[in-house]
């Protein structure tokens, strides 16, 4: 069979197929009305939700730090915990500003009327920003978890010291307490790494192949040009 035969086969097939799937104007109206969000619109929605969650986390973190934790402290919170919490808030606010700028830049040029190379580059950029948002949100979650855990442990030692009528330094260097702190740190590390790898696996499973496919297509385009 020659290539010209392919053309004649295609002509026969495509005209028959198009007439078989032909839609009236009403059906096209209906389809437009019922259209669901496409992939990029869903990403856009997820990013907006992500940013709102970041703001809520930042507010919660500040509220917890300024109002709740200060009332509950037996003694003044050590400066290193205050610094750690302050850095946590700065990190969240910084991430928030960074995402807004990155996302704005990534979506500025996105349109399916552009040439293929620009469409692919835009989608890859949007997905990279989305991935960054995902990892940053995960990082913030794990950071909050760690800070809360460390603060909680410190409070626990403080409470125990108060109960026994001794000071924190003396108690925290006692062998049973060192063992407990070590176990706590190991559990914390296990939980954090477990959560990190679980979320990373989930993200890769959802978008990994798609990002790979887009990059491969872009590479194919760059092959000759």
């Amino acid at each position, binding site marked *: 069979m020659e290539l010209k035969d392919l053309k004649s086969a295609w002509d026969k097939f495509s005209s028959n197929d*198009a007439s078989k799937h032909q839609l009236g104007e009403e059906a096209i109206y209906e*389809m437009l009305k019922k259209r*669901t969000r496409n992939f990029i619109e869903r990403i856009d929605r997820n990013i907006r939700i992500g940013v709102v969650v970041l703001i809520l986390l930042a507010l919660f973190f500040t509220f917890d730090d300024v109002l709740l934790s200060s009332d509950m402290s037996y003694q003044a919170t050590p400066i290193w915990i205050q610094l750690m919490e302050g850095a946590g808030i700065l990190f969240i606010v910084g991430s928030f500003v960074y995402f807004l700028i990155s996302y704005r830049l990534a979506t500025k040029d996105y349109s*399916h009327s552009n040439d293929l190379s620009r469409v692919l580059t835009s989608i890859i950029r949007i997905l990279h920003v989305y991935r960054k948002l995902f990892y940053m949100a995960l990082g913030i979650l794990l950071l909050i978890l760690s800070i809360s855990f460390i603060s909680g442990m410190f409070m626990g030692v403080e409470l125990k010291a108060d109960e026994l009528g001794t000071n924190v330094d003396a108690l925290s260097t006692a062998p049973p307490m060192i063992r407990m702190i070590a176990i706590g740190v190991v559990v914390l590390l296990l939980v954090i790494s477990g959560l990190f790898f679980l979320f990373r696996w989930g993200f890769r499973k959802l978008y990994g192949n798609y990002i790979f496919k887009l990059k491969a297509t872009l590479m194919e385009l760059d092959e000759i040009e």
Partner: protein
Amino acid sequence: MEKEFVQIISQNQGIIHKVCSIYCDSEEDRRDLFQEILAQLWKSFPSFRNEAKFTTWMYRVALNTAITSFKKNKRQPDKTGIEVGNFQLAVEEYDHETEEQIKLLHQAITNLSGIEKSIVLLYLENKKYEEIAEITGITQNYVRVKMNRIKKKLKKYMNH
């Protein structure tokens, strides 16, 4: 604007059907892609300027959508067989010789990459290299080189 859009799409919907038949392996995928292309055309319609022909612009948006479409981890169709997909549904309606040709065409196209499918579709639609380049936004030189490779690939599949 919506009325104008629907009318013009209705008149040129054959383009979307052709793109869907090249890129989809099942009726379900085909419906999803048709809807996605329609939504993208509607979204991009305000930015359409009469610098290009409407059909050129429509091909561009439809092909870009098909190449970059995101499929969730659905069951992957059997790409080596011809028992699935729109082509299989259609072949029953032709004489034996045409049926064989359509099966071959399907097998050959299934093995091409997303970009190759878009070039081969425009080639089958008798578009000149210049127009293929305009639709895909790649250079004529690239189209020529790519088309030569595709022809070799197609011949290889057909002679198997």
